[in-house]
Structures are given as C-alpha cells and as structure tokens.
C-alpha cells in the first residue's frame, strides 16, 4: 500500500499551506534543527544517498559570513520524474525545505537550479517564490524573526551531468558544467568558494515535512538503516505508471510494481531498473527484495534516484543497452579521460553487439574491465555509475549463453 507522508499536503493551495515546518524550525536553535534531521537519518534522495543531517552539520560548523544552500532540481536521470512531481504539486514545500536548511546552517542565500526543460515546474516555482516574498516567508526578517533569506532560480540548459553537485555549482557560476576535484567538498568550498549545501528537491521537501511534527516522524517509518519514505517514479511496461510513495521495508520491489503500478505488461517480467539508468537491473529471481537501501545494496544494486523502469521479457534488451550507452556517450562532460573514452569505446562495442544480435564473451569481459577503470578513475557519480546497467544486463542475460 502507498504510504502517504511526503505527499500528505497534496492538493493544498498555497493560501492554505501553513509552513509549520519552517515555523517550528524558527522556534528552535539551529543545532536542534540539525540534530532532528540527523536523528531522522534522512539520506540524499538524488541518488547518492549521503545523510543530509551530516552535510548540514558540517556546513554549520564552517565559519564564514556567506554560505549557500542550493536545491538540486536538475532531475535528468532517465525514468525519474519525482522532483518534477514535487515542484509542480508541492512547490511551497520544496522552497520551505530550502529556507529551513538556510536557517539551520546559517545561510542567507539560496538557489534552486531547475533543468531548463522543466518549463512548467519553472513557472510554478517562480510564482511560488514571489508569493512567499509577499507572505514574508522569504526576504528580510522572515515571519518576524531575525532570520533573513533570499532565493534565486537558475535554469539549467540541457546538460545531464549538472545533476552532479560540483558540476551544478560550476554551472551556476556560469562555467561549463564540469565536475570539480574533491576535496574540497562543497560544504567547505562550494559556490563562489563559499560553504555550500547542495540537496536534492525530495531531500529538502522531506526535511520540511519532518520539521512539521513535534516528534521525529522518521523514527517510526522505515527500517533501522533506511528511515522514512521514498518517492518512486515508475514507468516502462506497467499498467499504472506514476509517482508513488513507499515506506522503506514495507514493500518489495515486486509488490511496488504489481500492487502500486498495476503489474507488468506483456508476457512477463524481463527486469526492473530500480533507480534510474545508473543502477544495476533486478531479474525475476531478485525482485522479491524489500525496498530498502541495505537490501538492494546486498544484491548489488541501489535505490538510486527512485526512477524505476520496468521492462517486459518481450523487449530486445540489446536495444535498451544501446539506448543507455548512447546516453552516457553523449552526456559525459569529458573531463575525466576514462569516462569520456571509456563510454565512447563501450558504445562502439555495444553498437556492434546490437547489430549482431548477441555479445561475445570477450566483449563482456572488456566492458567489465572498462567499467572498473571508469568507475575507479571518474571523479563524479556520473562516471562511477555509467556502466552499471549495461554490464548488469549483459552479465545477467548473456554471459552464460555466449562464447
């Protein structure tokens, strides 16, 4: 069953929205807000899964007059549309999360970086920001307190890699969206060299929702290691695609697909891509796995962005590999040589495999080698994860059958 937590204010108009998360936060000490988010073990919902509270705490402790909060709304992972859903349906909660983070870490300046293609979300967020200024939820002395905070919207311009936080920072600064070498981490030296927290849309919205309650709701939701809920966007070969909210540990991937998304179309399941095209596939033998960070990790894949794509066994899997490989070839920023050349070479091989109709054992080995090189040498998540899906399909469905 769908668990309604983050979605609980769905349908509420801006006028009726109370901003209780922000109001509660402003009554608390900054460190108390941080502790609450830390205790909730809210993990980054963009794909990397880094605990948000630790990011906030680190930024809080860095001494600087100027700090930034950046909301990463550059959702581009194929199969993922939950951030768009949040921005279009709960825009005030997204912005509320940014303001709360700003208060907690001691920042006065926020950005929301929305991918340029999300024209509708851009319009809605722009209007929401304006209304929030009018209601004094943004601007000087917010709701009569000493805290002041401004937010600016910046549109991305069609580069997937800008979803990586350091690339996104470069992009706001007006540079090519190329990743930076870490360290320094953005919480120490981020936007314009200042301490910067970059959080995903869903992460910040969840933070706002958590702050709404007097107690910590996340402690009662999910499992020990995966607290809370996750928005899962499901598409592909299912009867009821859409954005569903799932409490961690309460449903298996199979149940999510069958009960929430209406089941698999066609003559049966081929595989499920659990969290966007940077994650390894789940086969029919594996999809009865509880939806948690730890359980998916145990079987070699990842929650990722929550962008679930269901593929029936009637499909040509090699066509999907080709599609994914074209994507990574085109979208690599080109900074790290192994990612740029690796994905190009894999694409050449995958194209040949697709033409031929089956892979050779040697090719799978070479792709596996290149994957290791790329994921070890790339300096951002793009490279690290770029070959996961391709190799997992080849290994699961072809490795044993071919010479």
């Amino acid at each position, binding site marked *: 069953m769908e668990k309604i937590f983050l979605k609980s204010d769905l349908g509420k108009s801006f006028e009726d929205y109370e901003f209780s998360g922000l109001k509660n936060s402003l009554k608390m000490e900054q460190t108390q807000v941080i502790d609450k988010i830390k205790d909730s073990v809210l993990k980054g919902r963009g794909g990397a899964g880094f605990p948000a509270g630790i990011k906030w705490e680190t930024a809080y402790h860095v001494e600087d007059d*100027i700090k930034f909060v950046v909301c990463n709304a550059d*959702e*581009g*992972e*194929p*199969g*993922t*549309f939950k*951030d*768009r859903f949040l921005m279009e349906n709960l825009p005030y909660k997204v912005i509320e999360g940014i303001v709360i983070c700003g208060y907690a870490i001691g920042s*006065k*300046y926020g950005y929301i970086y929305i*991918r*340029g*293609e*999300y*024209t*509708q979300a851009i319009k809605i967020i722009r209007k929401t920001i304006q209304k929030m200024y009018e209601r004094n939820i943004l601007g000087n002395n917010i709701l009569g307190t000493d805290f002041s905070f*401004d937010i*600016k919207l*910046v*549109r*991305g*311009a*069609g*580069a*997937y890699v800008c979803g990586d936080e350091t690339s996104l920072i470069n*992009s*706001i*600064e*007006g*540079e*090519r*969206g190329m990743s930076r070498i870490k360290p320094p981490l953005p919480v120490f030296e981020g936007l*314009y060299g200042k301490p910067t927290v970059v959080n995903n849309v869903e992460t910040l919205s969840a933070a706002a929702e958590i702050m709404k309650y007097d107690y910590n709701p996340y402690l009662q939701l999910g499992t020990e290691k995966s607290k809370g809920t996750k928005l899962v*966007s*499901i*598409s*592909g*070969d299912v009867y009821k*695609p*859409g*954005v569903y909210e799932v409490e961690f540990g309460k449903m298996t991937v199979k149940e999510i697909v069958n009960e929430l998304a209406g089941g698999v179309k066609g003559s049966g399941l081929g595989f499920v*891509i659990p969290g966007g*095209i940077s994650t390894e596939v789940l086969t029919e033998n594996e999809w009865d796995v509880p939806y948690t960070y730890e359980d998916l990790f145990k079987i070699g894949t990842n929650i990722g962005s929550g*962008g679930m*794509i269901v*593929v029936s066994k009637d*499909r040509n899997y090699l*066509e*999907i590999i080709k*599609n*994914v490989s074209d*994507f990574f070839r*085109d*979208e690599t*920023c080109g900074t790290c040589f192994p990612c740029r050349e690796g994905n190009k070479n894999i694409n050449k091989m995958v194209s040949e495999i697709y033409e031929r109709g089956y892979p050779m054992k040697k090719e799978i080995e070479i792709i596996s080698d290149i994957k290791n090189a790329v994921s070890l040498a790339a300096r951002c998540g793009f490279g690290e994860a770029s070959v996961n899906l391709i190799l997992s399909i080849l290994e699961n469905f072809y490795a044993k059958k071919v010479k």
Partner: protein
Amino acid sequence: MEKYYEKELLEELHDIQETYGFISEEDILRISEKRDIPKAHLYGVISFYSMFHLKPTGKYIIKVCDSVSCSLNHSADIVKVIKEHLGIGENETTRDKKFSLEVVECLGHCDEGPVMIINDTYYTHLTTNKVVQILDNLD
C-alpha cells in the same frame, strides 16, 4: 554578497535564446565586454549546453525524448513521422524557418510517453497521428 545579486550568465543566455532563438556573435561580444570574459570562453560555455544555439533556429523547436521509457513507448516512430512530415533530419530546420527538430534525453514525463516539448509546451501520450495534427495546427 555581490555575485548573488548579479544575474547568472546562464539566465542571461536563456533570455537571449528565448527572445531571438539563438545567441548571436553580437550578443557574445556584448556579454564578453560587460562581464569581462573572453569571447572564446563564452563560446566554450554556450556550446557545452544543448539548449543554447549559436545559429538561428526555427520558430518552433521540437524536442522529442528518446530515453529508455519513451523508447519503450516507441518514440522512434514519433521521430520518424516528424522527419517525414517536415522533410528535415535531426538538428535541422525547415526552409521556412518554422520548425527545428531535436532528439533529446529524458524530459521527465516517463509515465506519459512518448513525449515531446515544443518551445514551452509539453505533449504527452503521443501517437503518429496526433503528432502530425499538432504540427499542422501550429501557426
């Protein structure tokens, strides 16, 4: 915080792109002087982002998604029918400068595919018939 109150370069480029359909040599020269950034550097930035164009585009820029989910929903057929109907290929513009066609990555409407966006407007659940109708109805 000085830089915070400046308009970001990306936003400035978007405004030009939206108004004129491309970013011209003169625009680049002007921005270069205003912001004290070398022209070559600006070209580097602009060419990195697929939404910015250095050459004039059609009045309508059609972007069809061909990422995994849309591809499972036969986005290739949509691209094919647009190409045939308009007589142009990918990244080309019709002679009357009305339409440009681009095949792009995920547009974030994976549950409603196949999907395209024309300028600011999304069109979902496309069929080959529907696409032709949509194009014919644009002035």
